């Protein structure tokens, strides 16, 4: 197997090359029963991925292992294990700077260990995909699902998408490469799922055939040319501004940081197309009780919506699918009817509640309630959500 075996019709492993639209929207699909880790393998298998670097950490180890199997089976061009997560995130950057479509996976403490690299990724405009299987990061050490780590990722300049279930993880992984590699976007994509709740949960998923794959990445359409013997990584590093202390250096840094964030915003029309919208709304459209959630918290909210309907109480669920870019317009539109906005979360700080509050500030009269909030790997039973809602609704009606 070699990149030299690539033709216009087929990639090096013999899969027929197809457009992302065909892969996501047109190809016939069959039902499978899979975990999030297994579906990650299936998605990567269909993406003509050049390189992947891995390092084991629960709960993403299985996904990383399975990408390694894809390398052994001839689907992924290059695969190796880094010395730690900092090494991994640096090494995938090297692969991507050299023009490779690159993917890696990590979780919780691994994410934080690698932290310096994420703003470096966006600053060098590499379209790396990181599949983040969220896990607790506090001490005492935990392996349990808790998405506190996402709050640390919010301002790295990377796109952040949040998949609700195994199906969305599959579809988002494929769309992720495509949107991240758009020449006018070209920033890293972090595809987040809640560890265990998605990575280890087995459910039915619809997959297109595995003899088709995405067109290869074309690094010569990138805003920064790929490195070679003439071209240093991130061309501007040839004459590093960090060495200078003058107005041009400051202005360059500032404008580049704006540019990275603008690039994330420029992903909006593409993401709307490939994700079928940045937010999905279910339930009673005119409901005054609105749940705003992402990931599996929106799963729980949908169950709560079903139970509230049985009690004759109207509610709706607004599931945010992208966190960066933040879907301000979609959120505002979807919460027009709201009097109470509940933001159920799997972390202690309520980072999504802060995002929602900031986004709606001065634009909505609704009361924003950052509850229920569970942490440390706890489940969020529907009963807990109902308890919060009924407490608020009854409180306002008086004793």
């Amino acid at each position, binding site marked *: 197997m070699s990149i030299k075996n690539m033709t216009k019709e087929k990639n090096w492993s013999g899969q027929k090359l197809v457009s992302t639209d065909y892969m996501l929207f047109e190809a016939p699909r069959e*039902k*499978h*029963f*899979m*975990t999030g*880790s*297994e579906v990650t393998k299936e998605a990567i298998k269909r993406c003509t991925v050049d390189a992947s670097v891995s390092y084991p950490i*629960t*709960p993403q180890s*299985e996904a990383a292992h*399975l990408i390694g199997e894809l390398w052994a089976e001839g689907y992924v061009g290059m695969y190796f294990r880094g010395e730690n997560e900092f090494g991994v995130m640096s090494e995938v950057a090297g692969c991507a700077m050299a023009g490779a479509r690159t993917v890696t996976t990590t979780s919780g403490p691994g994410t934080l260990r690698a932290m310096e690299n994420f703003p470096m990724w966006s600053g060098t405009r590499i379209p790396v995909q990181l599949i983040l299987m969220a896990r607790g990061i506090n001490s005492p050490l935990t*392996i*349990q*699902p808790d998405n506190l780590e996402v709050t640390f990722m919010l301002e790295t300049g990377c796109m952040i998408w949040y998949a609700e*279930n195994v199906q969305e993880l599959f579809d988002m992984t494929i769309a992720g490469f495509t949107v991240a590699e758009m020449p006018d976007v070209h920033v890293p994509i972090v595809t987040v799922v*809640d560890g*265990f*709740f*998605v990575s*280890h*949960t*087995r*459910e*039915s998923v619809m997959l297109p055939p595995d003899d088709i794959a995405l067109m290869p990445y074309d690094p010569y359409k990138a805003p920064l040319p790929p490195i070679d013997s003439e071209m240093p990584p991130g061309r501007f590093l040839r004459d590093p501004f960090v060495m200078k202390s003058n107005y041009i250096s400051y202005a360059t840094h500032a404008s580049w940081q704006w540019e990275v964030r603008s690039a994330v915003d420029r992903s909006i029309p593409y993401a709307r197309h490939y994700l079928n919208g940045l937010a999905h709304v279910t339930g009673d459209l005119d409901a005054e009780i609105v749940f705003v959630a992402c990931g*599996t918290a*929106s*799963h*729980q909210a*949908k*169950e709560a919506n*079903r139970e509230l309907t049985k009690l004759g109480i109207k509610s709706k669920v607004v599931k945010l699918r992208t966190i960066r870019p933040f879907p301000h317009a979609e959120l505002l539109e979807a919460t027009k009817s709201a009097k109470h906005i509940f933001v159920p979360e799997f972390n202690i700080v309520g980072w999504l509640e802060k995002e929602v509050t900031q986004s709606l500030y001065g634009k909505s009269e609704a009361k924003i309630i950052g509850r229920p909030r569970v942490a440390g*790997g706890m*489940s*969020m*039973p*529907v*009963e807990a959500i109902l308890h919060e809602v009924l407490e608020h609704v009854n409180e306002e009606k008086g004793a």
Partner: protein
Amino acid sequence: MAADKKRYNMRISGLGGQGVVTSAHILGSCMDNAGKFASLVPFFGSEKRMAPVEAYVRASSEPIYEVGEVVYPDIIMIYHSQVVTHGKSYTMPFYTGLKKNSLVIINTGFEVLNEDDKKVLSDLNATVVQFDATALAIKIAGTELATNMAMMGMLLGLTGLVTEAHIEAAVRERFLGNSFVASGGTASLDSAIEKKFKKKEDLLAKNMEVINATFEMAAKIDLNSDELIINIAV
């Protein structure tokens, strides 16, 4: 306990090596094969032989959104008496969170519930089905490793969620298919059980014999009886 209920939230407690997660997987696959909905999730910890293991299965005739551990189950399955007698469970006591009018299936050859347990379960109007699934597995399949099949068979026999054909397809897929990704410990148990049989087809046949036997036993049980504990001889 009505068998046509739309949604079942199951908590399966057992010990490492008994096939708790494997049977949860097969249960989910059965539902999937039957065109219904299921999701399953194992407890996330450091599982090892004889240590507590839990898995959770949600099964329904409509889509399931909820994920994570089942905190308020309406079916509890206990694969080993030590879950009750030694407290080898992540949820203590084992019936924590159990909803009213629920079903508990316990693998045991002796009386495991004390008077306090019985009082709580009785107040919840639960039905407890007790049988020696391990003895049945040894009797029919010649190995205690088929205990999980007996437990699963009893559950499906009692609830009528799926047919035996759906189960057979799921068992076949698990042991003879190539899509299942097992962890290291599970993979070594898989190879241990495969060595007990000349062919994988024999393993499948014995597992199905165990399941069929439990279906016959389940057919004789009246879940609407007023008895708290229904003991079935193996």
